[in-house]
Protein backbone atom coordinates (compact mmCIF):
# COMPACT_ATOMS: atom_id res chain seq x y z
CA UNK A 1 0.00 0.00 0.00
CA UNK A 2 2.91 2.39 -0.59
CA UNK A 3 1.31 4.07 -3.58
CA UNK A 4 2.52 7.60 -4.30
CA UNK A 5 -0.16 10.22 -4.65
CA UNK A 6 0.65 13.46 -6.41
CA UNK A 7 -2.83 14.93 -6.36
CA UNK A 8 -6.00 14.65 -4.32
CA UNK A 9 -7.59 13.10 -7.38
CA UNK A 10 -4.93 10.35 -7.36
CA UNK A 11 -5.62 9.66 -3.71
CA UNK A 12 -9.40 9.58 -4.05
CA UNK A 13 -9.23 7.44 -7.17
CA UNK A 14 -7.11 4.92 -5.29
CA UNK A 15 -9.00 4.88 -1.98
CA UNK A 16 -12.48 5.04 -3.49
CA UNK A 17 -11.72 2.26 -5.99
CA UNK A 18 -10.76 -0.03 -3.12
CA UNK A 19 -13.77 1.16 -1.10
CA UNK A 20 -16.23 0.42 -3.91
CA UNK A 21 -14.83 -3.08 -4.35
CA UNK A 22 -15.01 -3.62 -0.60
CA UNK A 23 -18.61 -2.45 -0.49
CA UNK A 24 -19.53 -5.15 -3.00
CA UNK A 25 -17.61 -7.73 -0.99
CA UNK A 26 -19.28 -6.61 2.25
CA UNK A 27 -22.76 -6.84 0.71
CA UNK A 28 -22.11 -10.34 -0.59
CA UNK A 29 -20.42 -11.30 2.71
CA UNK A 30 -23.40 -10.05 4.73
CA UNK A 31 -25.80 -12.01 2.54
CA UNK A 32 -23.76 -15.19 3.05
CA UNK A 33 -23.55 -14.50 6.78
CA UNK A 34 -27.33 -14.07 6.92
CA UNK A 35 -27.78 -17.41 5.16
CA UNK A 36 -25.43 -19.01 7.71
CA UNK A 37 -27.24 -17.26 10.57
CA UNK A 38 -30.73 -18.32 9.54
CA UNK A 39 -29.77 -21.65 7.98
CA UNK A 40 -31.48 -23.74 10.63
CA UNK A 41 -34.53 -21.52 11.20
CA UNK A 42 -37.99 -22.97 10.85
CA UNK A 43 -39.37 -22.13 7.42
CA UNK A 44 -42.65 -20.58 8.57
CA UNK A 45 -42.20 -17.38 10.56
CA UNK A 46 -44.93 -15.16 11.87
CA UNK A 47 -42.86 -12.01 11.36
Amino acid at each position, binding site marked *: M*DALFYTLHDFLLH*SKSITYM*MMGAVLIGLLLFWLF*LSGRDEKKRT*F
Partner: protein
Amino acid sequence: MPQETAQVNKSIFTPFNVIAGMIIFCGLIITVLRFTGGLGAVTNLDDNNPWGIWIGFDLLCGVALAAGGYVTSASCYIFGLKRFHSAVRPAILTAFLGYALVVMALHYDVGRPWRLPYPIFLSPGTTSLLFEVGLCVFLYLTVLFIEFSPAALEWLGLKKIRNLVVRLTLVLTIFGVILSTLHQSSLGALYMIAPSKLHPLWYSGYLPVFFFVSSVFAGLSMVIFEGSLAHRHLHHKMDETHLEESAGVALGFGKAAAFVMMGYVGVKFIGIAMDNNWHYLATGWGLWFLLELIGFVVVPAFMYAIAARDRNLRLVRWASILAVLGVVLNRLNISVVAFNWHLPSADRYFPSWMEIAISLFIVTIGVVVYRFVTTRMPIFYEHPDYEH
Protein backbone atom coordinates in the same frame (compact mmCIF):
# COMPACT_ATOMS: atom_id res chain seq x y z
CA MET B 1 -45.50 -11.89 44.84
CA PRO B 2 -45.61 -14.54 47.56
CA GLN B 3 -41.84 -14.85 47.60
CA GLU B 4 -41.49 -11.32 48.98
CA THR B 5 -42.52 -12.42 52.47
CA ALA B 6 -39.79 -15.07 52.60
CA GLN B 7 -37.12 -12.37 52.38
CA VAL B 8 -38.27 -10.27 55.32
CA ASN B 9 -36.19 -11.92 58.04
CA LYS B 10 -32.93 -11.98 56.07
CA SER B 11 -29.88 -10.20 57.52
CA ILE B 12 -28.92 -7.02 55.72
CA PHE B 13 -25.21 -7.92 56.02
CA THR B 14 -25.07 -10.05 52.88
CA PRO B 15 -21.77 -10.14 50.93
CA PHE B 16 -23.35 -7.96 48.22
CA ASN B 17 -24.55 -5.34 50.71
CA VAL B 18 -21.22 -5.23 52.56
CA ILE B 19 -19.12 -4.81 49.40
CA ALA B 20 -21.57 -2.32 47.86
CA GLY B 21 -21.66 -0.40 51.16
CA MET B 22 -17.85 -0.16 51.27
CA ILE B 23 -17.63 1.07 47.68
CA ILE B 24 -20.39 3.65 48.26
CA PHE B 25 -18.69 4.84 51.47
CA CYS B 26 -15.36 5.32 49.63
CA GLY B 27 -17.20 7.02 46.78
CA LEU B 28 -18.87 9.48 49.13
CA ILE B 29 -15.52 10.45 50.67
CA ILE B 30 -13.99 11.02 47.21
CA THR B 31 -17.12 12.97 46.25
CA VAL B 32 -16.47 15.36 49.13
CA LEU B 33 -12.81 15.69 47.99
CA ARG B 34 -13.89 16.33 44.39
CA PHE B 35 -16.39 19.05 45.24
CA THR B 36 -14.22 20.75 47.85
CA GLY B 37 -10.78 20.40 46.22
CA GLY B 38 -11.77 20.53 42.53
CA LEU B 39 -10.83 18.23 39.65
CA GLY B 40 -7.09 18.50 40.34
CA ALA B 41 -7.50 17.03 43.83
CA VAL B 42 -8.79 13.68 42.63
CA THR B 43 -7.96 13.27 38.91
CA ASN B 44 -4.91 12.98 36.66
CA LEU B 45 -6.54 15.23 34.06
CA ASP B 46 -4.47 18.02 32.52
CA ASP B 47 -4.52 20.38 29.54
CA ASN B 48 -3.41 17.58 27.18
CA ASN B 49 -6.01 15.19 28.55
CA PRO B 50 -9.05 17.14 29.69
CA TRP B 51 -11.35 14.13 29.24
CA GLY B 52 -10.51 10.98 31.20
CA ILE B 53 -12.38 7.84 32.16
CA TRP B 54 -15.29 9.79 33.59
CA ILE B 55 -16.06 10.64 29.98
CA GLY B 56 -14.54 7.56 28.32
CA PHE B 57 -16.11 5.00 30.62
CA ASP B 58 -18.95 6.59 32.60
CA LEU B 59 -20.37 8.62 29.72
CA LEU B 60 -19.43 6.92 26.44
CA CYS B 61 -19.79 3.34 27.71
CA GLY B 62 -22.80 4.28 29.85
CA VAL B 63 -24.67 5.73 26.88
CA ALA B 64 -23.69 2.89 24.51
CA LEU B 65 -24.66 0.14 26.95
CA ALA B 66 -27.93 1.89 27.80
CA ALA B 67 -28.95 1.56 24.13
CA GLY B 68 -30.86 -1.59 25.07
CA GLY B 69 -33.80 0.66 25.96
CA TYR B 70 -34.46 2.04 22.50
CA VAL B 71 -33.45 -1.17 20.71
CA THR B 72 -35.84 -3.34 22.75
CA SER B 73 -38.78 -0.94 22.72
CA ALA B 74 -38.33 -0.34 18.98
CA SER B 75 -38.25 -4.08 18.24
CA CYS B 76 -41.40 -4.62 20.29
CA TYR B 77 -43.55 -1.58 19.55
CA ILE B 78 -42.29 -0.37 16.15
CA PHE B 79 -41.30 -3.65 14.45
CA GLY B 80 -44.15 -5.49 16.20
CA LEU B 81 -42.03 -8.32 17.63
CA LYS B 82 -44.33 -8.86 20.61
CA ARG B 83 -42.43 -11.98 21.67
CA PHE B 84 -39.81 -9.60 23.07
CA HIS B 85 -42.38 -7.74 25.20
CA SER B 86 -41.20 -9.18 28.52
CA ALA B 87 -37.71 -7.75 27.87
CA VAL B 88 -38.95 -4.18 27.45
CA ARG B 89 -39.34 -3.18 31.10
CA PRO B 90 -35.95 -4.51 32.28
CA ALA B 91 -34.31 -2.87 29.25
CA ILE B 92 -36.05 0.47 29.85
CA LEU B 93 -35.05 0.34 33.52
CA THR B 94 -31.41 -0.36 32.64
CA ALA B 95 -31.45 2.44 30.08
CA PHE B 96 -33.07 4.89 32.49
CA LEU B 97 -30.55 4.09 35.23
CA GLY B 98 -27.72 4.17 32.70
CA TYR B 99 -28.61 7.66 31.48
CA ALA B 100 -29.36 8.94 34.98
CA LEU B 101 -25.90 7.77 36.06
CA VAL B 102 -24.32 9.32 32.96
CA VAL B 103 -25.75 12.67 34.02
CA MET B 104 -24.62 12.05 37.58
CA ALA B 105 -21.08 11.21 36.37
CA LEU B 106 -21.10 14.38 34.29
CA HIS B 107 -21.51 16.40 37.48
CA TYR B 108 -18.15 15.04 38.64
CA ASP B 109 -16.38 15.70 35.36
CA VAL B 110 -17.66 19.15 34.47
CA GLY B 111 -15.68 21.91 36.14
CA ARG B 112 -18.78 23.87 37.15
CA PRO B 113 -21.58 21.33 37.27
CA TRP B 114 -24.16 23.82 38.49
CA ARG B 115 -23.97 25.29 34.99
CA LEU B 116 -25.08 22.06 33.28
CA PRO B 117 -28.57 23.48 32.48
CA TYR B 118 -27.01 26.58 30.84
CA PRO B 119 -26.64 25.13 27.31
CA ILE B 120 -30.28 24.02 27.33
CA PHE B 121 -32.03 26.95 28.97
CA LEU B 122 -29.72 29.99 28.93
CA SER B 123 -27.24 30.00 26.08
CA PRO B 124 -27.85 27.25 23.53
CA GLY B 125 -24.89 26.89 21.18
CA THR B 126 -26.94 25.45 18.36
CA THR B 127 -23.93 24.92 16.09
CA SER B 128 -22.14 22.76 18.66
CA LEU B 129 -22.20 18.96 18.67
CA LEU B 130 -21.86 19.04 22.43
CA PHE B 131 -25.08 21.08 22.59
CA GLU B 132 -26.81 18.45 20.46
CA VAL B 133 -25.55 15.66 22.73
CA GLY B 134 -26.58 17.59 25.84
CA LEU B 135 -30.05 18.37 24.51
CA CYS B 136 -30.64 14.77 23.35
CA VAL B 137 -29.44 13.24 26.62
CA PHE B 138 -31.61 15.69 28.58
CA LEU B 139 -34.69 14.91 26.43
CA TYR B 140 -34.04 11.17 26.25
CA LEU B 141 -33.58 10.91 30.01
CA THR B 142 -36.99 12.56 30.35
CA VAL B 143 -38.47 10.14 27.79
CA LEU B 144 -36.95 7.16 29.63
CA PHE B 145 -38.31 8.43 32.93
CA ILE B 146 -41.82 8.57 31.45
CA GLU B 147 -41.37 5.18 29.76
CA PHE B 148 -40.25 3.66 33.06
CA SER B 149 -42.91 5.38 35.18
CA PRO B 150 -45.79 2.87 34.57
CA ALA B 151 -43.88 0.28 36.64
CA ALA B 152 -43.48 2.74 39.50
CA LEU B 153 -47.10 3.93 39.19
CA GLU B 154 -48.38 0.34 39.28
CA TRP B 155 -46.27 -0.22 42.40
CA LEU B 156 -47.73 2.92 43.97
CA GLY B 157 -51.26 1.99 42.88
CA LEU B 158 -51.85 5.16 40.83
CA LYS B 159 -54.05 3.58 38.17
CA LYS B 160 -55.32 6.67 36.35
CA ILE B 161 -51.94 8.28 35.70
CA ARG B 162 -50.49 4.87 34.80
CA ASN B 163 -53.17 4.28 32.15
CA LEU B 164 -52.57 7.75 30.74
CA VAL B 165 -48.80 7.17 30.47
CA VAL B 166 -49.23 3.72 28.88
CA ARG B 167 -51.18 5.36 26.04
CA LEU B 168 -48.07 7.39 25.21
CA THR B 169 -45.91 4.27 24.69
CA LEU B 170 -45.69 4.37 20.89
CA VAL B 171 -45.01 8.12 20.73
CA LEU B 172 -42.34 7.81 23.41
CA THR B 173 -40.73 4.87 21.61
CA ILE B 174 -40.53 6.81 18.33
CA PHE B 175 -39.18 9.85 20.17
CA GLY B 176 -36.64 7.63 21.97
CA VAL B 177 -35.38 6.08 18.71
CA ILE B 178 -34.97 9.51 17.08
CA LEU B 179 -33.14 10.97 20.07
CA SER B 180 -30.91 7.90 20.42
CA THR B 181 -29.99 7.94 16.73
CA LEU B 182 -29.03 11.59 17.12
CA HIS B 183 -26.92 11.50 20.25
CA GLN B 184 -25.36 8.03 19.91
CA SER B 185 -23.87 9.16 16.60
CA SER B 186 -23.05 12.65 17.87
CA LEU B 187 -20.93 11.21 20.66
CA GLY B 188 -18.72 9.70 17.97
CA ALA B 189 -18.84 12.89 15.95
CA LEU B 190 -17.42 14.77 18.96
CA TYR B 191 -14.07 13.09 18.34
CA MET B 192 -13.98 14.30 14.74
CA ILE B 193 -12.75 17.60 16.10
CA ALA B 194 -9.43 15.95 17.00
CA PRO B 195 -7.98 14.38 13.82
CA SER B 196 -4.44 15.17 14.95
CA LYS B 197 -4.91 13.62 18.39
CA LEU B 198 -6.81 10.41 17.74
CA HIS B 199 -4.91 7.54 16.10
CA PRO B 200 -5.84 7.26 12.38
CA LEU B 201 -7.11 3.70 12.81
CA TRP B 202 -9.77 4.94 15.20
CA TYR B 203 -10.28 8.37 13.64
CA SER B 204 -12.60 8.39 10.66
CA GLY B 205 -15.16 10.56 8.97
CA TYR B 206 -17.51 7.67 9.72
CA LEU B 207 -17.11 7.92 13.52
CA PRO B 208 -20.79 8.87 13.99
CA VAL B 209 -21.80 5.79 11.97
CA PHE B 210 -19.44 3.56 13.98
CA PHE B 211 -20.85 4.85 17.26
CA PHE B 212 -24.46 4.46 16.21
CA VAL B 213 -24.10 0.97 14.70
CA SER B 214 -22.05 -0.26 17.67
CA SER B 215 -24.66 1.14 20.06
CA VAL B 216 -27.27 -1.14 18.46
CA PHE B 217 -25.35 -4.35 19.19
CA ALA B 218 -24.13 -2.94 22.52
CA GLY B 219 -27.77 -2.49 23.55
CA LEU B 220 -28.78 -5.94 22.31
CA SER B 221 -25.81 -7.56 24.08
CA MET B 222 -26.47 -5.65 27.27
CA VAL B 223 -30.09 -6.87 27.33
CA ILE B 224 -28.85 -10.48 26.99
CA PHE B 225 -26.10 -9.97 29.60
CA GLU B 226 -28.40 -8.24 32.06
CA GLY B 227 -31.08 -10.87 31.44
CA SER B 228 -28.67 -13.70 32.26
CA LEU B 229 -27.60 -11.97 35.50
CA ALA B 230 -31.23 -11.34 36.43
CA HIS B 231 -32.02 -15.00 35.80
CA ARG B 232 -29.31 -16.05 38.18
CA HIS B 233 -30.08 -13.62 41.01
CA LEU B 234 -33.70 -12.50 40.56
CA HIS B 235 -35.22 -15.68 39.18
CA HIS B 236 -37.88 -15.73 41.92
CA LYS B 237 -39.19 -12.34 40.78
CA MET B 238 -40.05 -13.54 37.27
CA ASP B 239 -43.50 -14.68 36.18
CA GLU B 240 -44.31 -17.52 33.81
CA THR B 241 -44.42 -15.29 30.72
CA HIS B 242 -41.02 -13.79 31.44
CA LEU B 243 -39.45 -17.19 32.04
CA GLU B 244 -41.00 -18.64 28.88
CA GLU B 245 -39.95 -15.73 26.68
CA SER B 246 -36.44 -15.23 28.07
CA ALA B 247 -34.73 -17.90 25.93
CA GLY B 248 -36.38 -16.52 22.79
CA VAL B 249 -35.30 -12.99 23.73
CA ALA B 250 -31.66 -14.04 24.23
CA LEU B 251 -31.49 -16.07 21.01
CA GLY B 252 -33.42 -13.52 18.94
CA PHE B 253 -31.34 -10.61 20.18
CA GLY B 254 -28.16 -12.66 19.72
CA LYS B 255 -29.09 -13.31 16.11
CA ALA B 256 -29.81 -9.63 15.49
CA ALA B 257 -26.58 -8.61 17.24
CA ALA B 258 -24.54 -11.06 15.11
CA PHE B 259 -25.83 -9.53 11.89
CA VAL B 260 -25.33 -5.92 13.04
CA MET B 261 -21.82 -6.74 14.30
CA MET B 262 -20.75 -8.15 10.95
CA GLY B 263 -22.16 -5.04 9.27
CA TYR B 264 -20.15 -2.95 11.74
CA VAL B 265 -16.95 -4.83 10.85
CA GLY B 266 -17.64 -4.13 7.18
CA VAL B 267 -18.13 -0.41 7.79
CA LYS B 268 -14.97 -0.27 9.94
CA PHE B 269 -12.86 -1.69 7.11
CA ILE B 270 -14.52 0.64 4.63
CA GLY B 271 -13.48 3.48 6.96
CA ILE B 272 -9.87 2.30 6.77
CA ALA B 273 -10.09 2.02 2.99
CA MET B 274 -11.51 5.53 2.58
CA ASP B 275 -8.60 7.07 4.48
CA ASN B 276 -6.09 4.58 3.03
CA ASN B 277 -4.83 3.66 6.51
CA TRP B 278 -3.94 0.05 5.70
CA HIS B 279 -0.26 0.52 6.54
CA TYR B 280 -1.09 1.24 10.19
CA LEU B 281 -2.44 -2.30 10.57
CA ALA B 282 1.11 -3.66 10.49
CA THR B 283 2.12 -1.63 13.56
CA GLY B 284 1.57 -2.30 17.28
CA TRP B 285 -1.44 0.01 17.19
CA GLY B 286 -2.75 -2.04 14.27
CA LEU B 287 -2.53 -5.24 16.29
CA TRP B 288 -4.42 -3.57 19.14
CA PHE B 289 -7.03 -2.37 16.64
CA LEU B 290 -7.37 -5.85 15.15
CA LEU B 291 -7.64 -7.37 18.62
CA GLU B 292 -10.53 -5.02 19.36
CA LEU B 293 -12.23 -5.66 16.03
CA ILE B 294 -11.64 -9.38 15.62
CA GLY B 295 -11.38 -10.54 19.24
CA PHE B 296 -14.30 -8.50 20.54
CA VAL B 297 -16.55 -8.10 17.50
CA VAL B 298 -15.98 -10.84 14.90
CA VAL B 299 -15.53 -13.63 17.49
CA PRO B 300 -18.67 -12.78 19.54
CA ALA B 301 -20.59 -12.28 16.26
CA PHE B 302 -19.76 -15.85 15.23
CA MET B 303 -20.49 -17.07 18.76
CA TYR B 304 -23.91 -15.41 18.53
CA ALA B 305 -24.47 -16.92 15.08
CA ILE B 306 -23.55 -20.45 16.15
CA ALA B 307 -25.62 -20.04 19.33
CA ALA B 308 -28.65 -18.87 17.30
CA ARG B 309 -28.28 -21.83 14.91
CA ASP B 310 -27.85 -24.40 17.68
CA ARG B 311 -30.23 -22.63 20.12
CA ASN B 312 -27.38 -22.63 22.64
CA LEU B 313 -28.27 -20.24 25.48
CA ARG B 314 -24.97 -20.69 27.29
CA LEU B 315 -22.99 -19.62 24.23
CA VAL B 316 -25.21 -16.61 23.59
CA ARG B 317 -24.58 -15.42 27.17
CA TRP B 318 -20.81 -15.80 26.85
CA ALA B 319 -20.94 -13.95 23.53
CA SER B 320 -22.85 -11.10 25.17
CA ILE B 321 -20.10 -10.67 27.79
CA LEU B 322 -17.46 -10.51 25.07
CA ALA B 323 -19.52 -8.08 22.99
CA VAL B 324 -20.15 -5.77 25.96
CA LEU B 325 -16.41 -5.82 26.78
CA GLY B 326 -15.70 -5.05 23.12
CA VAL B 327 -17.85 -1.93 23.17
CA VAL B 328 -16.23 -0.79 26.42
CA LEU B 329 -12.78 -1.39 24.87
CA ASN B 330 -13.75 0.54 21.73
CA ARG B 331 -14.99 3.56 23.66
CA LEU B 332 -11.91 3.54 25.93
CA ASN B 333 -9.60 3.19 22.92
CA ILE B 334 -11.16 6.23 21.26
CA SER B 335 -11.35 8.42 24.34
CA VAL B 336 -8.23 7.39 26.28
CA VAL B 337 -5.90 4.74 24.79
CA ALA B 338 -5.54 5.92 21.19
CA PHE B 339 -6.15 9.55 22.12
CA ASN B 340 -2.95 11.63 22.18
CA TRP B 341 -1.20 8.49 20.93
CA HIS B 342 1.78 10.47 19.63
CA LEU B 343 2.60 12.10 22.98
CA PRO B 344 5.59 10.81 25.00
CA SER B 345 4.53 8.36 27.68
CA ALA B 346 5.26 10.90 30.44
CA ASP B 347 2.52 13.14 29.04
CA ARG B 348 -0.01 10.34 28.51
CA TYR B 349 -3.05 10.04 30.74
CA PHE B 350 -3.65 7.24 33.18
CA PRO B 351 -6.58 7.58 35.59
CA SER B 352 -5.90 8.09 39.29
CA TRP B 353 -7.23 5.47 41.67
CA MET B 354 -9.84 7.98 42.82
CA GLU B 355 -11.17 8.37 39.26
CA ILE B 356 -11.49 4.59 39.02
CA ALA B 357 -13.13 4.48 42.47
CA ILE B 358 -15.73 7.08 41.42
CA SER B 359 -16.52 5.09 38.27
CA LEU B 360 -16.91 1.97 40.41
CA PHE B 361 -19.04 3.98 42.86
CA ILE B 362 -21.38 5.07 40.07
CA VAL B 363 -21.71 1.53 38.66
CA THR B 364 -22.41 0.23 42.19
CA ILE B 365 -25.14 2.82 42.71
CA GLY B 366 -26.68 1.63 39.44
CA VAL B 367 -26.63 -2.01 40.56
CA VAL B 368 -28.07 -1.15 44.00
CA VAL B 369 -30.90 0.97 42.55
CA TYR B 370 -31.60 -1.71 39.89
CA ARG B 371 -31.88 -4.30 42.65
CA PHE B 372 -34.08 -2.02 44.75
CA VAL B 373 -36.44 -1.39 41.84
CA THR B 374 -36.61 -4.96 40.52
CA THR B 375 -37.31 -6.45 43.93
CA ARG B 376 -40.21 -4.07 44.53
CA MET B 377 -41.75 -2.98 41.23
CA PRO B 378 -43.34 -5.09 38.48
CA ILE B 379 -40.30 -5.30 36.18
CA PHE B 380 -39.95 -9.06 35.66
CA TYR B 381 -43.62 -9.82 36.15
CA GLU B 382 -46.93 -8.28 35.20
CA HIS B 383 -48.77 -6.61 38.04
CA PRO B 384 -51.89 -8.72 38.78
CA ASP B 385 -54.15 -5.64 38.47
CA TYR B 386 -52.90 -4.80 34.95
CA GLU B 387 -52.45 -8.19 33.26
CA HIS B 388 -53.80 -8.45 29.73
